[in-house]
């Protein structure tokens, strides 16, 4: 019970901090002070108080995007073990629900972008759904590999502490590398998308929400942060599937780990440039192949 409450509290409260940590890391690389760590929370508080302008002729779908963008990742987080603590909800086949909840969010975010009728937002929606279609097999190849290593069909079982790194180190390295790419692509970070640019022609996620403002845009930002948090937690557990003896230490290790992932993303964003858009599918197919090789190594 306590575990579930802590789980909920973390997934509700922590995500905006991650964006702050990334921004601070990038600022440190650039020799700037950067925005305060809590800037994400300030932004949300500001946006929720604002009025909003809806594009003329848009329908309920325009607002369904931000709503699904928050609800789906929050629910997905309930299926995911945070560090050494089991997920609040776990059943055989829950990883499929986990992946498809993000797909539900994508359906409505992309539809909301098309609802405005803007050419740029249509462009962003097209890129989002196309690139995700390549990230999805990479994710599922990884799930199959983890299912073969652990013999379990639920996220809590697959990501539970076990001798995985000892018995199947090489496949896990490949899956982790592939999922690192998926983590960056799904959260629209460099090298796939630059969350800082405002040049619509090169953007994917940002360009889909050009017309959202006020509370709706607040939900968009919050939903994106929750997604980043949840996928970071997934990635973290693949890289670091160890449990401490003390449950409280586990929570601490988890929070520290997620923040480390955020710093890692900040470092990647500081030292790399965005890829040319035509190269993005190639990198994603590469990620698919990495996790496919990881799965093949487990053939026996």
């Amino acid at each position, binding site marked *: 019970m306590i575990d579930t409450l802590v789980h909920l509290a973390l997934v509700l409260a922590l995500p905006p901090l991650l964006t702050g940590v990334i921004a601070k890391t990038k600022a440190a690389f650039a020799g700037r002070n950067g925005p305060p760590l809590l800037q994400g929370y300030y932004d949300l508080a500001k946006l929720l108080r604002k009025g909003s302008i809806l594009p003329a002729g848009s329908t309920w779908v325009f607002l369904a995007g931000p709503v699904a963008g928050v609800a789906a990742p929050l629910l997905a987080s309930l299926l995911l073990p945070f560090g050494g603590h089991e997920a609040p909800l776990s059943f055989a086949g829950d990883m499929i629900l986990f992946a498809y909840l993000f*797909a*539900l969010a994508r359906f409505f975010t992309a*539809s909301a972008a098309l*609802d405005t009728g803007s050419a740029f937002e249509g462009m962003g929606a097209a890129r989002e759904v196309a690139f995700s*279609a390549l990230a999805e097999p990479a994710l599922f190849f990884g799930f199959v590999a983890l299912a073969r290593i652990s013999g379990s069909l639920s996220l809590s079982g697959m990501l539970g502490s076990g001798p995985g790194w000892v018995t199947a180190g090489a496949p896990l390295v490949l899956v982790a590398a592939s999922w690192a790419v998926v983590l960056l692509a799904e959260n629209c970070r460099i090298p796939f998308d630059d969350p800082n640019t405002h040049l619509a022609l090169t953007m994917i996620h940002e360009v889909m929400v050009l017309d959202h403002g006020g509370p709706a845009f607040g939900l968009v930002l919050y939903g994106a942060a929750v997604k980043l948090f949840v996928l970071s937690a997934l990635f973290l557990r693949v890289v670091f599937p160890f449990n401490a003896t003390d449950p409280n230490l586990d929570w601490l290790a988890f929070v520290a780990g997620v923040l480390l992932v955020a710093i890692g993303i900040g470092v990647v964003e500081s030292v790399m440039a965005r890829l040319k858009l035509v190269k993005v599918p190639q990198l994603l197919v590469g990620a698919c192949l990495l996790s496919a090789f990881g799965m093949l190594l487990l053939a026996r």
Partner: protein
Amino acid sequence: MSLLLVLGGALLCAAGGVPGLLLRRAETGRRLALAGSLAGSLLGLAGAALAAVTGTVETIQRSWPLPGAAFHVSLDALSALFLAPLFLASAAAAVSGARSFGDEAHPDDAPRTRFFFGLSTGAIALVLVARNLLLFLAAWEVMALAAFFLVTADRESREARDAGRLYLFATHVSTLVLFGFFALFRSASGSTELVPLPAGVAGSDAGTALFVLCLLGFGLKAGLLPLHIWLPPAHAAAPAHVSALMSGVLIKTGIYGIVRFTSLVPDPPASWGDALFLLGAASAVLGVAFALGQHDLKRLLAWHSVENIGIIVLGLGVGLGGRAAGRPEWALLGFAGGLFHVVNHGLFKPLLFLGAGEAAHVAGTRDMDRMGGLARVLPKTALLFVAGAVAISGLPPLNGFASEWLVYLGLFDRARATGADALRAAFGVPALALTGALALACFVKAHGAVFLGNARGEAPQPHGQPASHGEPPAHVGPMALLAAACALLGLLPAVVAPALARAAAVAAPGPVPAKPLAELASLGTVGVAALAVVLLVAAVALLLRRRLAAETTAGPTWDCGYASPTARMQYTASSFARGPVGWFGWALRPRLKGAPVAKLFPASARFESHVLDTVLDRAVVPVFRAGAWLARQGRVLQHGKMQLYLLYVVATLVALLFQV
């Protein structure tokens, strides 16, 4: 009792349209046909539900004064699972069709179409319960021919006539192959009824021949790639309610044939499961890729039938492979998943076709690149179309997710086992994931291009009616019924779990898995999760609504500072799908016309891309051209000169005489 209900329902459906052919007053005929269809569907649905819930098998056997034939019908859980969506979709489509393909617009064709609609519903029902080979073939042929008259319902349309001809060709090849299949089946089983084959047949050459003929004959009807050639044009050209019936339930008779045949084989070889698995995966991935390349809304939906048949066959492949490997739990999961998808696709595909038909009617075109903004004219249709789109993309909380989840679970369960067999299943998982993600892309495109944004250019007014002619209950009602069924099966998938398990047990006779379906795959938990999705979305939406209540104004869409944006600047359906269509260019072979813009400030530019059917254009048509050429060479012998014909006769006789 349940069997009599189904037979009575089928008879009522089939007979309802007869008075309309004879009566002078079209309105009376329409009412009678509708009443027959509704009453028949209700009876049939009750019978199918009764059989699915109780699980009792009922059989009627009467002799028939034809050699080898008997009126032998039987209703078991497997038939019931196919019958339930048949009657539901048929009733919904009949109500919708009575309005959209009515007597005002089609005075000559409407009564005839109503008759054939009811007849094909009744014939499909008879196919699903027939247990005598000749009765099955007779019902099959009635169904196929009635469907031909449905595809060509609009006799004015050249497109419909062409599509009908292609369909007629394909369905007769299918029937011909099935004649061979049943002849072989009879010699292998020694019976004219659908009885289990003796053990050992499956592994022999006769068994292989049977399986190949079964795949060809039933695969042609199901639209399994590469036998789908008739399906996209037929579904595109037929009236919407006909496409709904054909795509939703008629093509499933092909799936039924495959499942019924394999259930009669006591020892299916592993290669059969692998063949289904590979065909299913190819059909799913390429079906959705072709769908992405379409401009025609109904043709896009037709290609999605190819995709969904692929998902179903993938599930059947897992099930059959499980039987061959002696793992009843895979058989249960695979067959339950595939059969559940049969039911679900029979609900959301008619829903989408009815919505698409109305959208195309109001826009006056089926070309998605010329539509847009229809959600403002048809808000209810748009909402129900979104429900269908979410369901067919396999997203929670609707029913498409529940069945795809079962198929996934069967694949995962098999993939974690040891051996090369598991590795094959392991590649099915990402294939299904890719299919799901591309289907999502395709339905974001279809829904967005048709219903969202702004109308692209002037849409011609259909039949002189104003664009906003309302949404009468006869149109919204059937769609709402189908959407409600989708929601019910998505939120409470556990209610059908016992029926699924029973049907899967019929499809996979033999050892029973140690655990029941409820323990292997917790559909109840999936339902709870779906409910959680709905509740959480509602909660966030309420929160947003309270925040928005303060001050919300409408403003123009921001278009990057460009001074006068027009609706034609919107991203079109074709541009939206350009990326994935390019990746699959090796299979799709898009035809490009016009050059993309090359230099700054172009005066005018045109660019078109069309994705046609590669199998039809590059394989079937060339082969038939070659055949026609060969036949033309034979014309040298046939010139109309009587004396030379007599010479042939004499020459043949002389040759024969020298032989003896």
